[in-house]
């Protein structure tokens, strides 16, 4: 009974934690956010003592900060942009840094025996050939993030592996997962089974394969320069090939612009398309950003054209008149300041006297009342000084500029 109650409380805490974390991670792309939440949820599912895990995680805010620091600033979602990565600037397909950060948390939980590194039947270890360096990595191994445009590496490198103590037996747990070998890290069965869009949201099912359906990003092979022969917008033979950095810059700039299909690289529609690229040259994935064409002005729009002569004339007259007006306004402004300082000083002196120089209660009340009235007048004068500067003078300058805009500009229809 008590265990049930504790389990229920823990579950509530877990749910609260995940809900709060989900709210805090809204700066991420939706896919990345779902991935991060799924990773945390798996962590909770695998934890033997969820309260200990909650204590390790400290708070959703702390975890959000960790994820935010690890999250690539270039990948941050822009409000004007999109909720999805589909049209986002291409990444190189490697495991995102925030996944590594969550992986570190998972490994620290394993170190503290909050999560048991157990291997059940149906699971296997990718490091079976090297028992001394058995290392547990979380479900999200790097295979899922190998850019499909690249040839798979002969031996997968697990980023978190060296940080785990050697005495901790750690294995890759892949429940219900199709058998993989380290020599073939690329998961080729995924596209065959699920011919769905690449950016399909991960399904946090309890029997989900150990490989959380990580978002597959359009890849930009950084190491491979864009070949001239196969690129669709390839330059002539004599011209220098565009540097990859330039492509990155274009993608980056394109990421901050409003949706323009012509600018963004061609996003893969399904899982099959990136697989085909395995045989093709990886550079085919790189679509150099086409130069933006200026958007035609919408019809009915007008442009403001200055009447130059009138504008010069107006400036010649308006500037001295404005300066004169400001000088005139400075007189009451400074007068208000002087009076405010004097009145506030008198009010403060009377207020001090009320509490230190009088012995009769009635006298104290009268002097206190007078002090309050004087201080009120002082505050009013001080505000008048501020208003003369921030309201009257600024309003005068604004009014002169506005008048000049009305008089010296004409609206013409845009061509």
């Amino acid at each position, binding site marked *: 009974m008590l265990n049930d109650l504790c389990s229920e409380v823990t579950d509530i805490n877990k749910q609260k934690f995940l809900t709060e974390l989900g709210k805090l991670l809204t700066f991420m792309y939706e896919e990345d956010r779902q991935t991060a939440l799924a990773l945390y949820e798996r962590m909770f599912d695998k934890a033997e003592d969820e309260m200990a895990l909650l204590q390790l995680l400290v708070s959703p805010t702390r975890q959000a900060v960790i994820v935010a620091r690890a999250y690539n600033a270039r990948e941050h979602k822009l409000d004007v942009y999109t909720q999805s990565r589909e049209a986002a600037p291409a990444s190189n397909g490697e495991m995102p840094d925030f996944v590594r950060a969550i992986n570190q948390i998972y490994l620290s939980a394993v170190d503290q025996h909050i999560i048991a590194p157990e291997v059940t039947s149906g699971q296997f270890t990718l490091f079976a050939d090297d028992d001394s360096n058995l290392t547990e990595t979380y479900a999200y191994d790097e295979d899922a993030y190998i850019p499909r445009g690249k040839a798979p590496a002969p031996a997968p490198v697990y980023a978190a592996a060296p940080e785990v103590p050697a005495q901790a037996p750690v294995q890759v747990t892949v429940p219900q997962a199709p058998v993989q070998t380290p020599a073939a890290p690329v998961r080729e069965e995924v596209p065959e089974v699920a011919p769905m869009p690449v950016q399909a949201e991960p399904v946090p099912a309890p029997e989900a394969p150990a490989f959380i359906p990580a978002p597959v990003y359009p890849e930009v092979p950084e190491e491979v320069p864009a070949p001239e022969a196969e690129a669709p917008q390839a330059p002539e033979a004599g011209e220098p090939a565009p540097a990859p950095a330039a492509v990155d810059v274009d993608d980056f700039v394109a990421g901050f612009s409003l949706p323009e299909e012509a600018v963004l690289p061609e996003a893969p529609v399904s899982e099959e398309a990136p697989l085909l690229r395995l045989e093709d040259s990886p550079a085919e994935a790189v679509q150099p950003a086409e130069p933006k064409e200026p958007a035609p002005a919408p019809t009915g729009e007008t442009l403001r054209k200055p009447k130059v002569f009138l504008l010069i004339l107006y400036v010649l007259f308006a500037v001295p008149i404005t300066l004169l007006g400001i000088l005139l306004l400075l007189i009451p402004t400074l007068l208000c300041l002087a009076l405010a300082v004097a009145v506030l000083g008198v009010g403060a*002196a*009377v207020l001090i*006297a009320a509490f230190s*120089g*009088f012995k*009769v*209660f*009635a*006298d*104290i*009340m*009268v*002097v*206190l*009342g*007078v*002090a*309050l*009235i004087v*201080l*009120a*007048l002082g*505050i*009013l004068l001080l*505000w008048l000084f*501020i*208003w003369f500067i*921030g*309201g009257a003078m600024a309003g005068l300058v604004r009014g002169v500029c506005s008048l000049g805009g009305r008089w010296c500009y004409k609206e013409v229809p845009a061509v």
Partner: protein
Amino acid sequence: MKKGWRIVLFLVVAALFLGAVSVGVGVITGANGDRIFQTLDDRYHLQVYYDYIMQVYDAFLIS
């Protein structure tokens, strides 16, 4: 600026109201104006300042 005006006017009206109430309570409970002025004059020499200002005013008025 409008919000500033609202806040300042609220403060001023509240201070004026409290001051008026204090003065009224003091007068009702027996405050004496001569006694108050005498106390303030002993502390801040109000009479001296008043005489000095009047002399300056007269001098400017005559000239």
